[in-house]
């Protein structure tokens, strides 16, 4: 039994060493190992299937480089294709011509939206913007308090006209769509140039809540809708990303909890299935644990490619 992709590819490379050309069978062997590594990294099954087919086609069709042996060539192609899907459309936040720019956060329960709201507001503030946080999760117990604490830590004001669910208010009341609208009005009046709207977590299959999210998006004419997704997610990434894409037509993706040791195949799944760019990485619980997404690093991470690229040098 081999543990890592590098181990398995080393074995494959051994068989290939000394061969001048790559046969279809050789490519199949390498492809099998890569398939397994992608699956172990939680890349979604349909995405893996498509990806492997594309890699095989390219490996067979391409002129072989003199500098690399054929197996190295396959790995190089895999790496390039990964970066291509992950980073094909990397871009920065787009700001509205007439402020305020409205950024809405959406995603499954517990993905990291409220934490991200704080980080994003701090990041923008440090760049000279004057963001306003808006508390539209009136449902999860103390979500509003949580955002207020994050805002305070970031030194960014929080618009929270409704307390949401708290010990004194145990049932969900209040209208998140109205809070969002009022938040944007507040920002205009107080001259905040960016509005960040935190929303409640919701499931892709929850029609009622998905409609509510769409209503918020439409009401405030959000300039950016960021789909926040946990890097530890497995095969459900595709179903969920599709549901949110149809539900709120998000404009970009934020991958959270990348400070963990999950390989993060979801990045590839979501980018590949929705064609939407991954824009930011969330890398911890602290306010500063946030960065612009790096497709090349993500490619290495998914396929354990750091080791694999070293292997290429050694081969």
């Amino acid at each position: 039994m081999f543990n890592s992709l590098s181990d398995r590819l080393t074995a494959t490379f051994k068989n290939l060493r000394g061969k001048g050309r790559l046969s279809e069978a050789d490519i199949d062997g390498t492809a099998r190992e890569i398939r397994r590594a992608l699956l172990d990294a939680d890349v979604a099954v349909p995405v893996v299937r498509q990806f492997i087919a594309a890699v095989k086609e390219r490996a067979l069709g391409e002129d072989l480089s003199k500098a690399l042996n054929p197996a190295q060539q396959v790995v190089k192609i895999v790496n390039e294709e990964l970066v291509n899907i992950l980073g094909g459309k990397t871009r920065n936040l787009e700001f509205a011509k007439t402020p305020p720019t409205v950024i809405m956060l959406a995603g499954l329960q517990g993905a990291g939206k409220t934490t991200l709201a704080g980080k994003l507001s701090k990041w923008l503030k440090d760049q000279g913007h004057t963001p306003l946080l808006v508390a539209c999760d009136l449902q999860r117990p103390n979500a509003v308090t949580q955002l207020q604490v994050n805002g305070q830590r970031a030194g960014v004001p929080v618009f929270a006209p409704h307390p949401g669910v708290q010990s004194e208010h145990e049932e969900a009341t209040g209208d998140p769509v109205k809070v969002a609208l009022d938040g944007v009005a507040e920002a205009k009046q107080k001259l905040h140039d960016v509005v960040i709207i935190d929303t409640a977590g919701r499931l892709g299959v929850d029609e009622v809540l998905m409609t509510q999210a769409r209503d918020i998006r439409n009401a405030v004419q959000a300039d950016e809708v960021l789909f926040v997704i946990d890097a530890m997610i497995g095969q459900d990434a595709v179903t969920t990303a599709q549901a949110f894409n149809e539900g709120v037509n998000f404009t970009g993706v934020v991958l959270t909890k990348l400070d963990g040791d999950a390989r993060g195949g979801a990045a590839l799944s979501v980018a590949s299935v929705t064609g939407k760019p991954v824009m930011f990485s969330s890398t911890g619980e602290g306010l500063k644990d946030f960065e612009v997404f790096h497709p090349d690093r993500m490619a290495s991470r998914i396929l354990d490619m750091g080791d694999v690229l070293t292997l290429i040098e050694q081969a």
Partner: protein
Amino acid sequence: VKTNNIFGKGLLSLLSTDDIDEDVWDEIEETLLLADLGTDASMELVDNLRDRVTIEGSKDPAAVKQMLREELIKLIDPTLDRSLDDDRLGTDPSVMMVVGVNGVGKTTTVGKLARVLVAEDKDVILGAADTFRAAAAEQLTTWGARIGVPTVRSDVEGADPASVAFDAVAAGVENEVDVVLVDTAGRLQNKAGLMDELGKIKRVIEKKAPVREVLLVIDATTGQNGLSQAKVFSEAVNVTGIVLTKLDGTAKGGIVVAIQRQLGVPVKLIGLGEGADDLAPFETEAFVEALLAE
């Protein structure tokens, strides 16, 4: 709640074809992978199924369907004890810690579990040992108020979680409650410092009363990382059961199959929503049925 059953639909329609060729086996494997069973468990399951089909010489779709069901049940192991150790022992309440990575549903599970215990006429106290995340103690206190049970918390942000946990257990002993439920901060298993802290919380509690259950909460959407979560948390605090949350979504939670297979830790409870009543006991057959349902 409507769930998406790629697993069931694909498989059962595949198995309705008369002839089981190589492509069909590949597709069976893919459908298992789609439920997050992982490559090891999926490949092993398919191998076992192939062997049985060869040995028993059966290509009857209904029989193969039944075999698959049996193999899955065998993997999940219905003989494991899935009950909670929730009775007082002498002067000690049953102390339960709820642990897991960030955002999986620990605090919500504490609230729901308290509801179940209260419904069984048990006295319960909650301990807010997440002193780290913004408004975590407030969140738990809201749950306590909902259920009508007291919450022991610190008013100091960033207080020592072990001492809050100790205070909660001490209050539980003093008030002769049946169960003390200790909520802990989310932590990723690769953070050694935070895992040490969790071990310390448990040790400090045990100066007062033994910890009888350590429930690891796993989010059903979790992929292969769930196995590493279970391994590392088990090493740190000896997990006694899994709570599989968010099964009301489209995810199947198949990673728990691998967890039970490798670690023998049983899934005890499942989470089916955000409300106080959305907690249920885990049932192997129902879980497998859900995997295979059309």
